[in-house]
């Protein structure tokens, strides 16, 4: 499901025009991005948490050439599903 399909699905469910849904989704994404840049954790009820985690710098050794490389630290966005979502997914059959 890509962005367009998502908007279509949402507008159908909400009985709202796509343009409104699209702008709302845009605003939400922008707000979330802003908050994440400030390294805040965002929690969505019954869905999960978005948080920023810092990956510390590390030494990586190329297995073939043995060249050691210092990988700098970085910040990444991490999503952790809520237990409610996890429970919902539990019943899902595994193929």
């Amino acid at each position, binding site marked *: 499901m890509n962005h367009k399909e998502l908007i279509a699905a949402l507008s159908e*469910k909400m009985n709202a025009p796509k343009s409104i849904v699209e702008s709302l989704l845009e605003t939400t994404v922008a707000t979330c991005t802003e908050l994440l840049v400030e390294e805040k954790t965002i929690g969505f009820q019954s869905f999960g948490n978005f948080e920023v985690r810092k990956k510390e710098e590390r030494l990586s050794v190329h297995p073939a050439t043995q060249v050691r490389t210092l990988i700098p630290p970085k910040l990444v966005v991490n999503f952790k599903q809520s237990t409610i979502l996890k429970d919902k*997914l539990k019943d899902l059959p595994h193929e």
Partner: protein
Amino acid sequence: MSKDKISSQEIIDFVSSKASVSKRAVEEFLKVLTSTIEEALIAGEVVKIKNFGTFKMQWNEPRKSVNVQTGEDIILPGFHKVTFTPDNQLRDLVNEPFAHLEPVELDGSPIEKTNTSSEPPLDPLRSLNEQAFEIRNILDEIRELSTIADGKVESIEIVEQEHTFELKEDVVEPIINSNIIESERPEYSVEETAEPIVVEPELPHQDFEEVDIQINFNPKSEPVVPEISISITESSESEPPLDPLRSLNEQAFEIRNILDEIRELSTIVDGKVESIEIVEQEHTFELREDVVEPIIDSYIIESERSEYSVEEISESIVVEPELSVIIEIEKVENELPHQDFEEVDIQINFNPKSEPVVPEISISITESSESEPELYESVSDQDVSIEEKKVKKRKHKKTWLIVILSLILLIFLGIGAYSFYPPARNFMDKNYSSIKFSVLKKSESISMTDMFNTVSGWFASKNEKEIVPQSIVIPKDTTQIDSIDAKPEVDSLQMLFDNPRVYTAYLGTERIHDGSRLAIMAKRYYGSKDFWVYIYEANREHIANPDRIPVGTLIKVPKVDKRLIDSSNERCIRKAKELHDIYVKRN
């Protein structure tokens, strides 16, 4: 790092205020959004939100584990997990504080490089000690040699002199070496090299002298064939009024010692060659008002038996200490096109054919006085180090063949130090060109003012003990005197590099907050993160360590000359990187 958690309610508040939609609508929207995503995921789909990221479902396999309390093996059931991969845009925005960092390959070589580059200026005293130690070893060996050969050659006594090293501010190491060469036959050659060299980079006037004295005794009927060659290589360079006298005294001392040795030798060979008398005349050194005139006047070597010739060599070294910068410049102009190289070879041969004793005395004096230190500027430190290695190798082999390279090394070192002042080179070049192309009156007048700038900047930087290091100048600059057209730009840039930067105007101030970097500021203000060094320079009094600036520090972003921060110019980048190395390594 604030880890405040934003709840759903807060998100709803934010979005509703931003989109000016009622909170209830936003709440509903978010609920529908999450449920839609869930449904899509449960249906096995991948949900992608533009500019945000992708949600995916992932199956985690069941795995074995151990119950911590009972120690029993248990199997954790497999479960589905929603994974989120942030979009490129979100990823970059979040990672902005560390965006400037790049992976660094560690080979160990960059560390070595910094060591070698930082060492030479640090410990001249230690190298002096090493040299003194070497000299002592060599003298010990000479003594041993004399006792071994005692039975045949009565005795060769070598007086060990005291070499005193004084480390002054601008004195580049004096190296005193004694080298002995011996072959299996009783042939002895003693080489003494004494060079009190005081290099003063400010003075463009230098004198080099070399005096080689070789005395060969070859009594052919005798089993003893002592062959002694003494070579004195002196190189005196002009310097401030105080030092020349000292160095001249040292030279005189050396000469006296050598003459003593010759005298001793004459007594040894006395039985065969009746006597060789060496008259040493007085060496007078006069220090006049501005002119130091050492007159080393004449060695007379007499032999009673055969004909002899007396050669008088008089050398006068004129040292003119700088009176003022202006005079200095005039002098340079006068002296530049003028070079003297002299070579005097004197050979005195005693050949009384009826005698079995055939003494052969050859004196060769090579004198070359130079008024232009530029000639040696192309010599790099690498050459010097290579020579140093060579010397060490030979000593290891213990072939007794130790060559006087250290003297040349010293001269090169001195001039190498000189060449590390690129303004000096510009200074010389400008003079040279202004003489050569006197038609260009304009450029001459400009070059004069430039010269004053460089000279003053140069002295200023010296007083600061070279906080701002001078970059190594490409030898091209000196050789291409003729290409004037290309020069001004290059020179002005070089001068910009060399002059200590003064920051008066500022583009703005920034307060350091968590995660802010000088490099990011430089990227924002100057267009390249390499130029952070200039921000650091302008704020050096507030910053102890450029890698760890305390939060809340006010950073003034200086206005830097546009030519300095031209990110398209490779030299600017290189210069900034050099500065970077210096500042980072110091801390």
